[in-house]
């Protein structure tokens, strides 16, 4: 029986509201006990976690692994390793790989390679429609059997009838739909529509590109009874629409990317292509609304929305660059920065990246409850460091936070009771 004890750390388990200096004991890949172990327990390995924080491993709702299809940007090994190095023990990958995750074979391939990599666990999202074209339903039932945790279409579905049927069929399969609310006709631009887009002469994407899609989706969710999760909200208005829907009792949750909590369209001054993301960085009021949404519980989780790119993808005039941020390296540090700026306790802040996303996914993870898989993150909350291309773990170095100073550095990541060896070949 493989055993491990983590001693004298400040143990924070948001799911049970635990925050105290104690010990965590692990056996057979599961949490065995917090505090005093059973009398017959002896630890083969011990970690002294004094002055460190011990919490559930982070769960990230959106990580582009880029494999299969774009291995020059990242691979399952490189990106799950980067996740693990940053305390993230489970990642959800959207279906827009190439080929698309619309057959059990692709879903199984990704999971098999993730298991072989032996780093962060990977939960694939199934395509809602074949090839994400928005025309015919993908085999949602078989994809669920193949290990997909939910369905998503990433690309907008313009045919409302297809959308209605997809939601109803997903509900029939008891699958959560993961929705990226984008109205395609209003989303032809590359940055938030406002003074900045006018000043820079870049085509804008108005707030309504998101809110129209949210309004339509909410009505169809009500009609079909599907359980829905809104991914990466970017506008304050959408947050209040979700809030109303939740108040009405609709089964909807939402997440926000970490970068939308810190950056606005003003950060695009000088055409900084590292700030080219979809949905776009919005106004200061939107940022405030997203932050409020988290604090009030209408937005449930923070995701990285990790999208690694090779350097060339960002080396063009702004509108011609690829959108997306390499964000695994900054999820935990930004979450800690959020706690500090908003003056909220760490239990609440860590909840946004542990048990809240686990609840959305409906998995038994993101907690230190007895018998749960022993996926943990141990970090030094007072370690100061600076993000540089050299210390980024992801293959993609496309981050607007390069050269930013952060507090909080991961010292150990434990998956299924094993200390992850980031440097192993």
């Amino acid at each position: 029986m493989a055993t491990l004890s983590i001693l004298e750390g400040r143990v924070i388990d948001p799911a049970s509201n635990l925050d105290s200096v104690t010990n965590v004991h692990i056996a057979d890949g599961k949490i065995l006990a917090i505090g005093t172990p059973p009398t017959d327990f002896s630890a083969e390995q011990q970690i002294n976690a004094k002055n460190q924080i011990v919490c559930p491993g982070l769960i990230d709702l959106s990580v582009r692994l880029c494999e299969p299809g774009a291995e020059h940007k990242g691979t399952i090994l490189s990106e799950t390793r980067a996740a693990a190095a940053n305390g993230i023990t489970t990642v959800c990958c959207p279906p827009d790989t190439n080929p698309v995750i619309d057959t059990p074979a692709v879903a199984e391939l990704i999971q098999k390679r993730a298991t072989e990599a032996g780093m962060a666990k990977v939960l694939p999202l199934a395509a809602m429609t074949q090839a994400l074209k928005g025309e015919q339903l993908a085999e949602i039932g078989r994809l669920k059997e193949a290990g997909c945790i939910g369905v998503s279409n990433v690309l907008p579905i313009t045919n409302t009838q297809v959308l209605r049927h997809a939601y109803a069929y997903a509900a029939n399969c008891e699958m959560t739909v993961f929705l990226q609310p984008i109205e395609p006709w209003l989303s032809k631009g590359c940055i938030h529509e406002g003074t900045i887009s006018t000043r820079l002469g870049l085509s804008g994407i108005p707030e309504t590109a998101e809110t129209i899609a949210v309004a339509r989706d909410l009505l169809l969710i009500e009609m079909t009874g599907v359980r829905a999760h809104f991914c990466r909200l970017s506008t304050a208005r959408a947050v209040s629409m979700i809030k109303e829907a939740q108040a009405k009792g609709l089964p909807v949750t939402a997440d926000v990317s970490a970068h939308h909590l810190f950056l606005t369209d003003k950060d695009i001054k000088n055409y900084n292509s590292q700030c080219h993301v979809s949905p776009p960085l919005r106004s200061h009021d939107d940022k405030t609304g997203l932050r409020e949404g988290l604090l009030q519980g209408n937005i449930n989780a923070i995701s990285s929305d990790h999208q690694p790119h090779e350097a060339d993808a960002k080396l063009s005039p702004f509108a011609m660059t690829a959108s997306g941020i390499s964000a695994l390296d900054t999820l935990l540090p930004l979450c800690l920065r959020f706690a500090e700026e908003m003056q909220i306790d760490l239990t609440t802040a860590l909840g946004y990246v542990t048990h809240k996303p686990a609840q959305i996914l409906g998995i038994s993870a993101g907690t230190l409850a007895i018998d749960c898989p022993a996926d943990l993150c141990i970090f030094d909350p007072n370690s100061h460091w600076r993000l540089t291309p050299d210390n980024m773990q992801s293959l993609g170095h496309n981050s607007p936070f390069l050269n930013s100073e952060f507090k909080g550095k991961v010292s150990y990541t434990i998956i299924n009771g094993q200390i992850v060896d980031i440097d192993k070949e």
Partner: protein
Amino acid sequence: MNNIQLDQQGRLKHFLGIEGLKRPILIDILNTAASFLSIDAKAVKKAPILRGKTIINLFFEPSTRTRTTFELAAKRLSADVLNFNIDTSSSSKGETLIDMLHNLEAMHCDMFIVRHKAGGAAYFMAQHVAPHIHIINAGDGQHEHPTQAMLDMQTIYQYKKDFAPLQVAIVGDILHSRVARSDIHALTTLGASQVRVVGPKTLIPKGIEELGVKVFNSLKTGLRDVDVVIMLRLQRERMQSALLPSVFEYFQYYGLTEDVLAVAHPEAIVMHPGPINRGVEIDSTIADGKRSVILQQVSNGIAIRMAVMAMTLGSRIPEQKEGQ
């Protein structure tokens, strides 16, 4: 932004946009251009300021007028000029903008004059080009067209002699216009008393008021008492994207005719960056009439482009008082 345009002494190194440039630099450009107007009038239209320098016209979008005036300006300053007209469809076949830039650098050129469909393209090139190369923006997407704005200012100055009391209306497709943005920055920096933009709601970009302009949706109201009318060209693609119903309706509500112009100041001048669409945004009687200064703008275009080239690339001749 745009500090990248200035060297450590605060002098022009690149000319990418009007935004961010202080008044003394704009005045400097106007004064330098005025000194070149006399060369234009001579029988031998050459000055040796850029002798031995190589300038590349790098046009990713078709243009005749702007490219030609840049070419003429460079030749009058005795520079060697190469024209690269890059069909965007062929450049998209592989070579990136960066690769092309480095290839041209390797040919030991001194200046690139760039027109590109993407906003920020000139800025991007200035960020990545070798330090001895100068970039002049000849129009980047919907962002800026700074030499056009300066030739507009030159023209306005020749007729009005002072910017402070002026009310200026810019009319038409503000949303897609780089000329409008550069003109707005130039006019507000030079201290015009009021800058107005006039057009239908579909062609007025969000938040434009924050650039210091007043928005009018009615042409007759917008032109009331103005001293300068700057008409913008209307692209016919705008009908296809449902921004406007038809050319006829546009002309009826936003076309400049004698009747509408009557509400402006009696000595108002009419400008247009060209090429004009007669009967679309401007009536022929106005375009050819006594208040039109459109051809004067074209002539000034050469002097302004000579001035900007000389100030960025020349050995500071003629010596001007430094900007800030």
